[in-house]
């Protein structure tokens, strides 16, 4: 469906920026080297044949036992060409950071805040990287697979209820 995008990427990035490409259920995806993340995205936005002006989603995936541990995923769509592609970038746990896509698409600001809040991936160059869903007092990142799924961090409790803060 959008083999054209992968062809453009393969033809343009010959320095090992593309780690892997593939097709699954008719959707093309590419795994991008971490330091080329912003460059590849900016190319896909500006290239007239791809014209992927609309990022529909950005999130992260925790693949706990794998190295690198996290994947940051972005879904791109072209309103004019009506094709889409999915990009991955692996982020290791000990240096959990990735270039921000806000300079490429300003609308990515809140998506990256969400990924930071829930997975703890820091985005370099993000203008305002702080929690967006959880409260500032929250410790840890709840969608990481090593976060206990029912561990609550209450802000307030009545007297006589378990988990009372203070």
């Amino acid at each position, binding site marked *: 469906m959008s083999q054209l995008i992968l062809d453009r990427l393969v033809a343009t990035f010959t320095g090992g920026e593309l780690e892997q490409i593939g097709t699954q259920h008719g959707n093309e995806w590419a795994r991008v080297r971490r330091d080329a993340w912003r460059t590849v995205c900016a190319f896909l936005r500006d290239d007239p044949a791809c014209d992927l002006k609309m990022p529909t989603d950005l999130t992260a995936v925790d693949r706990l036992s794998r190295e690198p541990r996290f994947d940051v995923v972005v879904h791109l769509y072209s309103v004019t060409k009506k094709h889409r592609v999915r990009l991955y970038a692996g982020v290791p746990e000990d240096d959990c950071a990735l270039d921000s896509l806000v300079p490429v698409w300003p609308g990515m600001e809140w998506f990256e805040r969400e990924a930071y809040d829930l997975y703890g991936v820091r985005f370099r160059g993000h203008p305002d990287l702080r929690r967006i869903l959880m409260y500032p007092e929250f410790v*840890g990142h709840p969608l990481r697979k090593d976060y206990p799924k029912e561990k*609550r961090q209450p802000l307030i409790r009545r007297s006589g209820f378990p988990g009372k803060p203070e």
Partner: protein
Amino acid sequence: MGLEIYNSTVQAAVNWARKFSLFQYPFVTACCGMEFMSTAAPKYDLARFGAEFPRFSPRQADLLIIVGTITERQGPALRRIYDQMCEPKWVVAFGVCASTGGFYQNYSTMPGADQVVPVDVYIPGCPPRPEQVLDALILLQERIQRGEGHSQIVLKAEAGHDVPIAAIRPRDKGPQAAPIGTQPHAVRPESAK
């Protein structure tokens, strides 16, 4: 003796008046709000039972209806709203999420609004049908008439009366929430750095 009879008679009359003039504050957070609107709309008509006007200021309300999921983050705001209401006041938990957390069993959802405010009547259902809501309202009216709402019992106990229910807690002051807007928002926990 005469004074007690006078007191109880007056109390009964006052409670009768209270139960038919509930001013509700709907704390609507989720999809149960649709069902609450249906209950308040003409077909089911909550107003028939005296709960006519939703007041969107807790200071003018005496019935807090918690409609929908309460997250841990909303806890301080909910407590603040309850603290702002005039006494006596009553609380209804509308739907399973407000009652117990419902099917959300995770890091973010509060397991029942009664973790931060005392709840008088729980309405199960996901969402509850309007008939259930009306049933709960009638149940609440009966409790008000008998003077058994949480805040009524607390007021009685503070006035030095014998309180018939053994299970009453000491006056529920709860921890005061920090004023909204004063918490440093950009502080990042140590583990996230």
